[in-house]
């Protein structure tokens, strides 16, 4: 037996390694300078920017025996995740101050979770997918529960943990079935075996597939596995909610996309309909339940369920175009949702979190700039041109229509119209009601930058989306 150990090429995985390194450095820095929070956030910001730059220059590569793939698809998602990290860090300086959160581990845990996400995005093997997912999840469990004195935060993290554990178990059982049926956990291996042995309609394989799909749907917060979303989003620290609504969701979609497109491209016939159903259910639940929410954070949580549904529209098409639509949408969603959460954080102060709808009454009078930005984000979330949300939605609808899912698209459009109601309600409260209290939000530098990035992103992608869209579509050449 030949047992020589050959070092796999580490170049492709260098960003992840660097990130782990920075995360560890952060722990050390935290130990050395327990007072200096600014340093931690600065390191995080710098490193995430640096990594984005690094990723942009990365070449396509495969390493670790085909388990780890660097292609433009994964790079795209990694950048979304890092973008999430970057903006969240910008948001955090004010938020942590307001909530008096002082754990230095905050940043490093976030980084570890981003490492998990990046691994997920690159994973070509279900083992790596699973482990990356757990790495991400475990970090996020901790982060959600970081406000230890706040029972809600604690409740959220427990709930997330329980449901996450359950979904992992489901996922694993599915993986075990897939492994048993195909003898491999490598996604392209699975695809090859399925095509070769013609077990595409084997119930056991389908059941395994269904279980894995359920597990991933949990991660992206699609119905009927969405139940964690509202509770966790509401309970979690707001900066974490912002983070979760963008980065882990993107990572989940990265995995889901790769799973469907690389693992089971031949079975589109089987999974198309169910994914469409899941998408519709997500949109339905998300949009309809959001109508009766009075807490903005919770409303945004439901909206994120709905948006997961929209993003699924791209995947269900099963085409390269569809995936690129989903990718662009997630990026765009990152901009607009981050913006909305930035406003949420901007408004919160230590005595009043101002998460209720009523707190937004008359915002246009007291804080015109914040109100105006929120208006842009809300219209973008609704999908009204000339904001980025429209472009994203357009791309999704187009790809789903091109794949022949006309009725799904019609329903999606109707749900989208329903969603306008609750997004607009916020606008209405801000612009058309009288303020209840006079307060002036304090802008921290981080928040200002974050808002600037989001607003510019939303408008820029709304008006000149060409470059990003073609970038996303180029990313698909890997498939």
């Amino acid at each position, binding site marked *: 037996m030949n047992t020589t150990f050959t070092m796999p090429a580490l170049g492709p995985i260098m960003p992840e390694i660097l990130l782990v390194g920075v995360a560890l450095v952060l722990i050390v820095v935290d130990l050395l300078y327990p007072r200096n929070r600014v340093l931690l956030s600065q390191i995080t910001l710098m490193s995430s920017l640096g990594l984005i730059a690094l990723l942009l220059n990365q070449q396509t590569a495969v390493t670790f025996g085909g388990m780890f793939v660097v292609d433009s698809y994964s790079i795209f998602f990694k950048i979304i995740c890092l973008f999430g990290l970057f903006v969240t860090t910008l948001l955090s300086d004010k938020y942590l101050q307001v909530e008096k959160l002082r754990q230095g581990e905050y940043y490093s845990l976030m980084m570890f979770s981003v490492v998990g996400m990046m691994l997920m995005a690159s994973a070509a093997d279900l083992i790596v997918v699973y482990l990356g997912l757990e790495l991400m999840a475990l970090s996020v469990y901790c982060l959600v529960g970081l406000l230890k004195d706040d029972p809600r935060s604690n409740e959220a993290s427990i709930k997330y943990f329980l449901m996450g554990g359950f979904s992992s178990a489901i996922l694993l059982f599915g993986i075990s079935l897939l492994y048993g049926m195909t003898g491999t956990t490598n996604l392209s291996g699975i695809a090859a075996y399925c095509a070769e042995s013609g077990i595409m309609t084997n119930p056991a394989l389908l059941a395994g597939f269904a279980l894995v799909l359920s597990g991933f749907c949990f991660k992206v917060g699609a119905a*009927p596995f969405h139940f964690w979303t*509202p509770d966790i989003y509401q309970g979690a620290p707001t900066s974490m909610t912002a983070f979760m609504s963008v980065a882990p969701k993107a990572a989940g979609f990265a995995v889901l996309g790769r799973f469907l497109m690389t693992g089971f491209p031949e079975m589109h016939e089987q999974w198309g309909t*169910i994914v469409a159903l899941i998408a519709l259910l997500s949109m339905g639940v998300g949009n309809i339940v959001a109508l009766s929410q009075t807490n903005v954070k919770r409303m945004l949580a439901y909206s994120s369920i709905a948006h997961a549904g929209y993003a699924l529209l791209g995947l269900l098409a099963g085409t390269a175009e569809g995936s690129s639509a989903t990718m662009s949408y997630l990026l765009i969603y990152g901009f607009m949702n981050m913006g909305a959460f930035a406003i949420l954080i901007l408004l919160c102060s230590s005595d009043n979190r101002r998460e209720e709808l009523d707190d937004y009454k008359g915002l246009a009078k007291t804080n015109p700039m914040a109100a105006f930005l929120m208006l842009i984000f809300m219209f973008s979330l609704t999908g009204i041109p000339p904001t980025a949300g429209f472009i994203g939605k357009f791309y999704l609808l187009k790809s789903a229509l091109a794949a022949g899912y006309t009725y799904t698209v019609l329903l999606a459009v109707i749900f989208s119209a329903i969603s306008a109601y609750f997004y607009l309600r916020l606008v209405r409260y801000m612009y058309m009601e009288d303020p209840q209290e006079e307060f002036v939000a304090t802008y921290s530098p981080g928040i200002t930058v974050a808002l600037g990035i989001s607003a510019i992103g939303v408008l820029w992608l709304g008006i000149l989306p060409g470059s990003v869209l073609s970038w996303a579509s180029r990313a698909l050449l890997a498939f």
Partner: protein
Amino acid sequence: MPTYLLLIPFLPLLSFVFTFLFGKRLGVQSHWVPIVSVLISFFCALYAFFQVKNGHGVNQDLYTWISSGTMTIAVGFLLDELTSVMLIVVTSVSSLVHIYSVGYMKGEAGYYRFFSYLSLFTFSMLMLVLGNNFLQLFFGWEAVGLSSYLLIGYYYDKKSAADAGKKAFIVNRFGDFGFILGLFLIYSAFGTLHYEPIFAHIDIIANQTFSIFGNTYYLPTAIALLLFCGAMGKSAQLPLHVWLPDAMEGPTPVSALIHAATMVTAGVFLVARCNPIFSLSMTALNVITIIGAITCLFAATIALTQTDIKRVVAYSTVSQLAYMFIGCGVGAYSAGIFHLFTHAFFKALLFLGCGSIILGMHHEQDVKYMGGLKKYMPITYWTFLIASLSISGVPGLAGFFSKDEILAMAFASPVPAGKFAWFIGTLVAGMTAFYSFRLFILIFHGEFRGTDEQKAHLKESPKVVTVPLILLAIGAVTAGHLGVPTVLGGDANWGHYLEPVLGHAMAHPSHFTEIILMIISVGAGAFGIFLAWKWYVKEPEMPKTIAERFPALYNLSLNKYYIDEIYDFALVKPALSISRNVILNFFDIGLIEKVVNGIPKLIGRASGSMRKVQDGLVSHYLAYMCGGAVFIILWMVVGA
């Protein structure tokens, strides 16, 4: 395009614009521009008349108004025999009324407004008669309606006046509804709306039919009847006559000009103008004759019992207009126009006389409070007498010639209803004489029945009022002599003059018949006068007795056959009630809005119940998730 022709309509238009914009500043002097301009128009019209007489008719386009696809409609003027007559009627009466108004309207608020509206009316009416196409006719048609609306509602702060104006406009719209459809039909048949090509190629519709809602109609009949709809509205024929009596809410000069002499005759003008079309359809002619006859009788019977002097005259107008329609209906268009012409003078005279009386009585219009005015207002008395004699058809006066020509033509006409119309016409001739003299007697004879204060102020109206009366009286006497029939030794100039446009009457009675008919109608008139004299001078209790003996008939007449009430009950109230209860409350609010608001409400309710699923219990969430996983497995396995 000859300048004199352009001056005729556009001077009044300029005067309207000028007076409307600057009249307020001119104050009591604001009448000068309108009067001068309308007088110039009058002289131009006279000139035009002679031009036509010398064979210099005009048919020219001014500019292209509307063009769309193959359709081109110009603004253009047609000056022919018919137009020239109408021009003289309009401008002459209008001039006199303008002058008269200086006296009548003195001191009214919005003096300038009145004159500017009068000018507007003159312009509109001239456009109506001068147009060389149907659409321009329609323009004038509607514009006179507008002027009428404005002038009826001159005392706009009086609700009854505002109501009357609105009513006039809307009732006319009913007629216009038919009119405009008639225009469409004409256009679709001829591809143009200009008179000349249409009348030149009238044959092409002679055998055509036209289908709508699966029914087929003879095309000329359809066109003619639709056009006649418009005429009925404008000329207040049954059943669209209801607006005219109410229009008496306007100042009296307006009643004289618009609601007696000119605008209301536009319907007759229309029928005469379109005589080639009407002549193609016996049915249409018959309908016109019948409607004319019925209206004639109907209005006369109402006039018998009214006590408001203007209303009496108004109903008499309706009745006289019906005569004109009978004339047209039996194919004697020139007779209709002849009556139009004479009627313009004596009816304007009657109205202006009424105005003079009203002025004297300080805006008292009810005959009950008058009486014995003869000695206070001699000029008014004499002119009013002439007018009454004229309308009663006393031989030698204008009304006699024209009315008898119509009756004779009706009698002789091949139109089936001709004889019937003759009979009614003769009957009404008697009734006309009766109510005219009833009115005359009640006003000028007997004792004064008004208040002492009124009595103290009674005096003859100023010159500016009486001079027009005198001028009109001359017209009321002489106008008829333009068309003395051959049987009376005349040479029927009138008919000959209009022949190029209106053609021959379908049939002439023999001279003998004509004489007989004349005698009958004069007899009827005389009898009417006699009866009036008998009942109102000799036996003043008689009317009361009769009224008490036939209360139903009396009330029917007094209340105008309850037509207004019937309309109100059958049309207006249901329309309002349907719009409020059925369309607004049931459909719009009850159905559409319920659905529109109901769907969001439903979604909201769904939202409320769906959020209950999110009950905060992890175990439940997990159960649902597990159920979801099971569902997906089953779906995929079963689906495969």
